[in-house]
């Protein structure tokens, strides 16, 4: 794992100094520290989605191979965005620099770099806005907080707007709701006009566009990955499951984040989905075309995000399903909840979701026609439709990580806790200021989960890890539950680094463990094929 190569956790912690340097930020160009940024986007990946200025480049090099008129392009772009987004225009004008947001960002907490204070991150952009779009900035320059758009500024943007995970924690505390995530979105849109993407984002975007999912899994691979899980499920339960793919006429289309098909512990979550749907006899289908719920396009531009999520409704329509269930994923759900219906609705060819098992009509999704799998499962448990044996999770002491996107872009707080309490007996909350709407990011969202920026990730993840460590020491917690595919990948690296005795699990893995299936054999191993403590002897 790449974490072994970087600075040690205790060294990392002592390296943090919250006191800003003597030199003012406008006089301090960004210093590109290794381990703190990602590689540049490759030509072929930008070409695949027709992005401008596609070329192979490296942020380390002096020459970024920019178009001649790059300043003009940026200023024009800025003008365009100001006219399109009230959030952006407003947030450029009304910050009073009270500093309430300053120490709320996990990247600031973990790095002490003042430009990671949300207010200063925004000033990086605001100073340019002032210089080119306000009279005071034009006349007074620096005195009004304005500065020229130089190459140094552009590099600084690239560096720091890829050090923000759009987690919105700052926005919770701001008296005007200024959301630095909105600024980061705009900044990334703008620098993408110059082809300044990262490899870790542009690769998945190209994959997702052409093959349907970030990982670039082709249809036959998707099927064989799932078949692999089915074998494991058979080993565990003795039950043979036969899901369908791209089946027309199914009642429900199920779309998961592709990460769940790829690497553990996401794969265990996928097994949980499969077991649950099988047990219910649900009339549903997977799709190899709409094989990604997440959307790395959002980390480049709104338009790209819209292009990638086209397939959700399109595939539902083609297959003639009635409604859609979405899997456990974070940014996927911010987008599905706050954007998808606006982008591609109205989905009037679908029906309001009704659970075929409980008859519950999901009124809150009556326009979008899709629900979260955890809403579906919570409803099942509430109505007593699942047979569960939570003692099968008794070897786990679980704490709950609220993902940024589902918490602050949706308000998805109680449903997962309800399901969690239904399937396991030992649940301990992390401290109040680190959960729910105040939850801390994993440190690697918005496409920052590469390996070359591992130090950045470990710094950004420090507040989360700090809280995990707290419940580990206090209650002996050994499992970090979550409902996000990125989390399952990134928190794994994070706990490996800070608290190696804690593991990471998606919620439906724990559901799968506890679920008593019709005709199953006595379970002796869990979904990870590890012995279930206390059940080994019974075989």
């Amino acid at each position, binding site marked *: 794992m790449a974490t072994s190569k970087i600075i040690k956790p205790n060294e990392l*912690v002592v390296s943090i100094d919250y*006191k800003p340097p003597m030199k*003012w930020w406008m006089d301090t160009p960004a210093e590109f520290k290794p381990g703190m940024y990602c590689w540049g986007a490759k030509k072929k990946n930008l070409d695949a989605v*027709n992005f401008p200025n596609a070329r192979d480049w490296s942020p380390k090099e002096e020459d970024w191979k920019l178009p001649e008129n790059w300043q003009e392009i940026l200023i024009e772009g800025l003008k365009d965005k100001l006219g*399109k*987004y*009230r*959030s*952006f*225009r*407003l947030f450029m*004008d*009304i910050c*009073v*620099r*009270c*500093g*309430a947001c*300053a*120490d709320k960002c996990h990247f600031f907490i973990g790095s002490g770099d003042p430009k990671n204070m949300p207010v200063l991150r925004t*000033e990086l952009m605001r100073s340019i806005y002032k210089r080119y779009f*306000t*009279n005071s900035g034009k006349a007074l320059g620096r*005195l*009004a*907080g304005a500065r020229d758009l130089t190459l140094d500024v552009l590099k600084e943007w690239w560096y720091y707007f890829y050090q923000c995970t759009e987690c*919105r924690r700052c*926005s*919770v*505390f701001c*008296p*005007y709701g*200024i959301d630095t995530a*909105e600024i980061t979105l705009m900044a990334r849109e703008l620098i993408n006009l110059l082809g300044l993407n990262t490899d870790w984002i542009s690769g998945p975007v190209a994959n997702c566009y052409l*093959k349907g999912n970030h990982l670039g899994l082709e249809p*036959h691979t998707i099927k064989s990955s799932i078949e692999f899980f089915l074998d494991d499920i058979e080993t565990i339960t003795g039950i043979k499951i036969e899901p369908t*793919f*791209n*089946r027309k006429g199914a009642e429900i289309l199920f779309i998961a984040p592709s990460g769940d098909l790829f690497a553990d512990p996401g794969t265990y979550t996928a097994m949980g989905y499969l077991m649950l749907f099988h047990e219910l006899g649900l009339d549903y289908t997977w799709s190899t*075309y709409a094989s990604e719920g997440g959307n790395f396009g959002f980390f480049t531009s709104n338009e790209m995000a819209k*292009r990638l999520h086209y*397939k959700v409704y399109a*595939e539902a329509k083609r297959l003639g399903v009635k409604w859609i269930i979405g899997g456990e994923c974070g940014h996927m759900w911010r987008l599905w*909840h706050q*954007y998808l*219906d*606006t*982008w591609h609705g109205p989905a009037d060819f679908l029906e309001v979701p009704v659970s075929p098992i409980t008859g519950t009509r*999901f009124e*809150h*999704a009556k*326009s*979008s026609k899709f629900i979260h799998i955890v809403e579906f499962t919570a409803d099942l448990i509430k109505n007593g439709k699942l047979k569960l044996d939570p003692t099968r999770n008794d070897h786990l002491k679980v704490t709950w990580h609220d993902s940024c996107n589902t918490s602050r872009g*949706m*308000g*998805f707080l109680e449903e997962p806790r*309800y399901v969690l309490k239904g399937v396991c007996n030992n649940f301990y909350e992390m401290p109040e200021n680190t959960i729910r*709407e105040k939850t801390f990011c994993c440190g690697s969202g918005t496409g920052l989960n590469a390996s070359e920026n591992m130090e950045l990730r470990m710094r950004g993840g420090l*507040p989360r890890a*700090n809280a995990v460590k707290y419940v580990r020491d206090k209650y002996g917690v050994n499992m970090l539950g979550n409902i996000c595919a990125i989390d399952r990948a990134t928190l794994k690296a994070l706990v490996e680094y800070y608290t190696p005795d804690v593991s990471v699990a998606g919620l439906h893995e724990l559901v799968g463990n506890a679920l008593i299936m019709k005709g199953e054999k006595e379970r002796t191993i869990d979904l990870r094929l590890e012995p279930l403590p206390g059940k080994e002897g019974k075989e």
Partner: protein
Amino acid sequence: MRAVIPFIAVLVLVLLAFIGVEVGKLNFLFAVVIPYVAISVFTIGFISRVVKWGKSPVPFRIPTTCGQQKSLPWIKDSKIENPSSTFGVIVRMALEVLLFRSLFRNLKTEMKSGKIVYGSEKYLWLAGLAFHWSFLFVLIRHYRFFIGKVPAFIGLVEGLDSFLQVGVPLLYITDVAILAAVTYLFIRRVYLPQVRYISLPADYFPLFLIFGIAASGVLMRYFYKTHIVAVKELAMSLVSFAPKVPEGIGVIFYIHLFLVSTLIAYFPFSKLMHMGGVFMSPTRNLTGNSREKRHINPWDYPVKVHTYEEYENDFRDKMKSVGIPVEKE
């Protein structure tokens, strides 16, 4: 430096008014022309700024949800922190505007022997609240200068404000509060290293200006008595658009009025516009029920997509080889 220039600027303003009136005898300019200009600049500037904001649409429904969503009927939703109804939004906004709800959440993040701890931090909220509410009270009290017969509610406000019953004339609590709050906000800005680092001249200037306004007001009320009747005469003449500058108003009044005029004229071009902006913030003033009610993006446009047909063309053989159904054999 970033604090010094605005400080000098405010001193210069004070001097300008002093010399203008004492030496230049430009009483009419300072008492009539400048206030009229300031009010016009404020009105036009404020409106055009709000219109500018309003012209940029809200393409997506992006509230920052600070509580449980409305989903299953047996899960208690947070009607205010994550409103699903207009009423909830109104309450949420009222709490933001009147009580600074979000600022009330403020925490202090500290590193203590290798551990990060979050302490409660309410001083900024308290000072902000004291400052803004005092300002409002002071404004309301000033209304008595502009109206012939003083309405009852002004008397009520004044009574409340001076309930301590100390001093002659009675001491207004808001006078003390606003000076204390502005002083706190200034000290905080220079004392906290992070806040000092982010501060611009544009952050210090209004603080000094407001301090100057409050201080000159206090001086006038409690120390150098001004000719109140003459001031009221002037104010009434201004609002009835028949400006007349009475004799005998002390220079300190002109300083006060000039600083106020500056503040008013400066307002629309500054961060003080947060007063109008807070009502329009899309992360606060929208409902969170995007799946229940579709939000329309007025500038939506069709985008290039990768259709199923193209996808199947790319993978048809592979799909067929593993038995995944296809549209075209």
